[in-house]
């Protein structure tokens, strides 16, 4: 008999392959195929302009657009839109190809050696084909300059999500869009040039038209109804407000110090943190200071919107601005300041407020001309909570935070919606005019360029950094008026960036490629690039980056009833374990564990059961086992439980315990126990329970 049992044993040995089978099925955690797409983080770069970004971040199961900046430098290729008939502009000669063909002379005009498109100015949109924009769940706006493409996204694509922005961003953004639409619609142009965009034709054009990129993506300005529709999709948020997206991700705007309501964004889950830094400033101007501390411990920091003029010191520029302005006026000339209707203009007016009396300019009129001039000045006074501390304190008094209120009250500053109407009656020279658009292609500024350009007494002072002043001036050449370039860009420079990065220590930095090399015109200035370790990952327009990060944990909540039922066991000093068998509920990306329901007692049925009725319903989950079985104690235990004929044989790896009467054999090794018996279920269960007494469950 013994030999036949041994034969049994060897038969069973061949079944060891079974162990491998199970391991293959359940596998270790590494082997579980998880949805890669959900675990990776991707950045789709839709704009190539470093200060007018438009990126899409796919993170966990959400798709988040970060800003939608509109690249308006494309307008520099167009002729200005004059408010009143300009004989000079209308007499410009059509452009003729080298071979003498004139088919483009209606579309292209030549002025002082430069060629311009004679058509309604067009803007370069962010990429709309790189990913399906209907999949974008939310758009986060960081400041009012970075939302100018919003109507193109919300009204021209199948986007259906929500836009988040602070209240000042929305209000001032609306003003910027209103001004833009107004300036362009006010000068209806019947001509819409398109022939020059043909690839074959464009090749033949002189620079910079020849090199203009993505001309097929250039679009005309949106309309006011589109602006309103776009803005209606914005939900207003406050600094440090935590906004839950589908329970998966939390986004939070932080003060970025650059403009009223400007923000950086934190995008995080319980375990990962992405910081989106866009248009930040450490200078003390009017906005609330930048919140740097909250950017700490980011896995990834996306860095955009640095200063466009890294070599100019904003304070010095303001000084130059004031002195040039004073000099011109004292000599009887007029000063033209092409500007946006909000932002730096508040600071300039504040400087002038302090400066004009001492400079003897008290009697010089200051005009601010924009369709939204009044609104902008009014709005600036009501955002106390978004202002720097000094200005907040003024509001507590209560006094208007900006001194331009007083300039208006004392009639030193006057504002008009346009040059038409009241302005033409009040207009006195010499004067200082603040007006838009800084590109000099549309808006009231075009009129003043035409009006004052011929006299060398007058000065145009460029303060906005978005457009090259030489390109802006090109269609007005030859010019007699003086041109002064005092770009004021308060955004972070490279020294501040490297200090910031040292401070907040992100694991990885992602930035536009322009920031990873010195400016093309100053290739020796290796200090004018981002310097950090590890080196930043860079992106360019239409690129998709896979961002490094590794997610290993998720938050889950254990319901109190389940928690009460758990039996923790101290396995090692300080470490306790409890096996958890529970029902997992997942809703809105939140996971909850509950007590499993008590098994339902099958209703007593008199019907004859079919065999299949007994098939176990779902796989009950049994714990893993660990530990080892001391043979001597096990044998003692068997004897205590009435097995009198226990025999132990030694094997190479352990022992075989034989229960001779029961024709049963138990093979015990360090990490395994194998019970081989006849089909005697009570015996098997009894032996099982005895074995389990020596093992720990996991």
């Amino acid at each position: 008999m013994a030999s036949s049992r041994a034969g049994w044993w060897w038969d069973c040995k061949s079944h060891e392959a079974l162990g491998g089978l199970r391991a293959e099925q359940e596998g270790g955690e590494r082997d579980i195929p998880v949805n890669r797409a959900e675990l990776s983080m991707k950045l789709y770069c839709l704009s190539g302009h470093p200060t007018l970004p438009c990126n899409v971040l796919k993170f966990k199961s959400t798709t988040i657009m970060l800003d939608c900046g509109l690249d308006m430098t494309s307008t520099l290729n167009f002729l200005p839109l004059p408010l009143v008939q300009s004989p000079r502009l209308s007499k410009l000669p059509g452009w003729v190809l080298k071979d003498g063909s004139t088919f483009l002379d209606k579309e292209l005009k030549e002025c002082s050696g430069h060629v311009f498109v004679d058509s309604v100015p067009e803007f370069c949109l962010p990429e709309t084909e790189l990913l399906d924009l209907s999949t974008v769940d939310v758009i986060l706006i960081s400041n009012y300059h970075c939302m100018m493409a919003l109507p193109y996204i919300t009204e021209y694509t199948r986007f259906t999500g929500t836009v988040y922005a602070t209240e000042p961003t929305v209000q001032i953004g609306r003003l910027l869009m209103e001004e833009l639409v107004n300036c362009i619609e006010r000068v209806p142009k019947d001509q819409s040039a398109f022939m020059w965009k043909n690839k074959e034709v464009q090749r033949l054009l002189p620079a910079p038209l020849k090199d203009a990129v993505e001309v097929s993506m250039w679009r005309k300005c949106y309309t006011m109804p589109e602006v309103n529709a776009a803005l209606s999709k914005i939900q207003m948020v406050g600094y440090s407000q935590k906004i839950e997206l589908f329970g998966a991700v939390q986004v939070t705007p932080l003060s970025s110090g650059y403009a009223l309501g400007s923000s950086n964004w934190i995008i995080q889950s319980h375990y990962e943190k992405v910081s989106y830094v866009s248009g930040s400033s450490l200078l003390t101007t009017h906005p609330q200071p930048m919140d740097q501390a909250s950017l700490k411990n980011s896995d990834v920091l996306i860095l955009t919107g640095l200063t466009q003029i890294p070599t100019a010191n904003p304070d010095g520029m303001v000084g130059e601005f004031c002195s040039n302005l004073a000099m011109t006026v004292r000599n009887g000339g007029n000063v033209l300041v092409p500007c946006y209707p909000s932002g730096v203009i508040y600071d300039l007016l504040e400087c002038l407020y302090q400066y004009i009396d001492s400079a003897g300019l008290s009697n010089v009129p200051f005009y601010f001309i924009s369709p939204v001039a009044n609104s902008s000045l009014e709005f600036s006074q009501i955002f106390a909570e978004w202002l720097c501390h000094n200005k907040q304190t003024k509001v507590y008094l209560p006094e208007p935070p900006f001194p331009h209120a007083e300039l208006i009250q004392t009639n030193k500053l006057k504002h008009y919606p346009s040059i038409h109407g009241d302005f033409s009656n009040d207009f006195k020279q010499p004067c200082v005019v603040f007006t838009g658009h800084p590109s000099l292609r549309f808006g009231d500024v075009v009129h003043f360029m035409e009006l004052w350009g011929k006299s060398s007494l007058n000065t145009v002072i460029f303060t906005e950094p978005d457009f090259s002043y030489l390109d802006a001036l090109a269609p007005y050449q030859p010019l007699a008026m003086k041109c002064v370039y005092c770009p004021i860009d308060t955004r972070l420079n490279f020294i501040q960036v490297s200090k910031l990065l040292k401070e907040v220590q992100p694991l990885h930095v992602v930035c536009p490629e322009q920031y990873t090399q010195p400016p093309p015109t100053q290739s020796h200035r290796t200090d004018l690039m981002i310097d950090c370790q590890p080196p930043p990952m860079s992106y360019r327009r239409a690129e998709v980056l896979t961002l490094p990060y590794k997610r290993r944990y998720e938050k889950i909540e254990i319901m109190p009833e389940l928690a009460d039922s758990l039996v923790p066991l101290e396995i090692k000093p300080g470490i306790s374990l409890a096996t958890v068998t529970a029902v997992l509920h997942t809703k809105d990306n939140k996971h909850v564990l509950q007590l499993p329901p008590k098994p339902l007692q099958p209703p007593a049925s008199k019907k004859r059961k079919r065999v299949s009725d007994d098939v176990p319903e779902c796989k009950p989950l049994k714990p893993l086992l660990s530990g080892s079985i001391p043979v001597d104690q096990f044998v003692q235990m068997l004897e205590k439980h009435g097995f009198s004929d226990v025999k132990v044989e030694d094997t190479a790896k352990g022992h075989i315990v034989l229960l001779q009467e029961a024709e049963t054999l138990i093979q015990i090794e360090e990490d395994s126990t194998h019970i081989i018996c006849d089909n005697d279920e009570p015996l098997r269960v009894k032996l099982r329970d005895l074995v389990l007494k020596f093992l720990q469950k996991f």
Partner: protein
Amino acid sequence: MPEIKITPLGAGQDVGRSCILVSIAGKNVMLDCGMHMGYNDDRRFPDFSYITQNGRLTDFLDCVIISHFHLDHCGALPYFSEMVGYDGPIYMTHPTKAICPILLEDYRKITVDKKGETNFFTSQMIKDCMKKVVAVHLHQTVQVDEELEIKAYYAGHVLGAAMFQIKVGCESVVYTGDYNMTPDRHLGAAWIDKCRPDLLISESTYATTIRDSKRCRERDFLKKVHETVERGGKVLIPVFALGRAQELCILLETFWERMNLKAPIYFSTGLTEKANHYYKLFITWTNQKIRKTFVQRNMFEFKHIKAFDRAFADNPGPMVVFATPGMLHAGQSLQIFRKWAGNEKNMVIMPGYCVQGTVGHKILSGQRKLEMEGRQILEVKMQVEYMSFSAHADAKGIMQLIRQAEPRNVLLVHGEAKKMEFLKQKIEQEFHVNCYMPANGETATIFTNPSIPVDISLGLLKRETAIGLLPDAKKPKLMHGTLMMKDNSFRLVSPEQALKELGLTEHQLRFTCRVHIQDPRKEHETVLRVYNHLKGVLKDYSVQHLPDGSITVESILIQATAHSEDQGTKVLLVSWTYQDEELGSYLTSLLKKGLPQSTA
């Protein structure tokens, strides 16, 4: 079990002196720090000795939150912070921070300069107190310390009024302060998201009132004012400088404009202009309509309403005067009241709630002979009208807020006991939540049962969700894991990972059973019969016939051999691991029943 404890030091079954202590997850927060307008003795301030007899308050409180600038919510603040002594953070919204010191200074002046009290807080103390204030934005999550966070929600009521959520871990309390659930002419309605706090502490000033439509009240008010003015009478409207004053001014201003009325409207105290200026600068806190149109027309620039001079009170002819304070307990409104009370042509309109003990309360409860200072008796002949314009939620509004926030418990403050009792029952009936209404000095204890957040390894989570996806996504998914507790961290990992992290190996427990089957056929034929049989019975399982002649059912292996002694009997070896016990055990019993003949 974790608990939240609430002790009102003021506003417990009472209106006035709002001050509520909350202990939540080891943090102590004081909500509001108000004065009582009905008292002039010690009782006007909350009894802070309840917090500590001799220590510094700073050691016992993590923060103080002020809901809005009304003195019954912030009037004791300088006393509390500078005279009793508290140096911790005090949170309030920007408009509250701006306006609160002005009302405190006003209050100090009346008390010290007019009534001649000593031992009161000084102007310097107000300034020092305000230095401890941290201003918060709406919806901003303010991290008071690592665990304690607070968040402000719009409350309507007055400019800058806020409700506050106080949160530690998963436990949270919402305190409403005073709020208004219907938008009015200058403010929006209170709003909160479905934040499901463990406890909602709500004011209940109008616990039993359900107000008729605002339009009716406004029409009524205008009619009364108009009639009085028409018959040459004078109208006195006692108000607080900020709040209802602006609301009623807007109302009268538009009415005067529309009806082209000429009778003068005055607004008392020098505060007016200043007050209106605050409204202009904090226009983002007003309602949508005002915000939208402020560039074209600022609603707080009044054409018809002029500053009041004391001498005007004796002018002949009709006039309307807004005068402070609102409960006729002191100051200019009381002076004018005394002058005009004797004439039945005149009218006083009380637009808000009056605390017990004030002249306002007395005349509203029908008293017509008032004993003034120096035993003088004042006979009130003028008409007395009460018109609820105070921007508190009524019973309907309170229920609406509860519906919005979905709290697990409700606690009522800032109301009268009898009315609270009524509302408490209504809340318990409708929402099936416990409702508490502790009196001052009484502690209500609320047990919370928070779920425990743990970290689950992604592998384990994904494994379980993946299994769940197959049969029925809606069916709850069973998961098995090991919770590892080390220090204070809780991690739920797969058993395999737990073993690995502890440096342990798995112990495999395997069973093999022999099942004897009578079948004279060849072994491989027997195997085929077994295979077909199992395949037929176990439809939902993966049953496979492997090339080596064995059968698998999921991970259970079955092999057949001939019996060494009896060729007519085949022996089936069924082998499974402990983890597959149910199925293995089931299979052996199934096979033991033999093979059906038909499968041959």
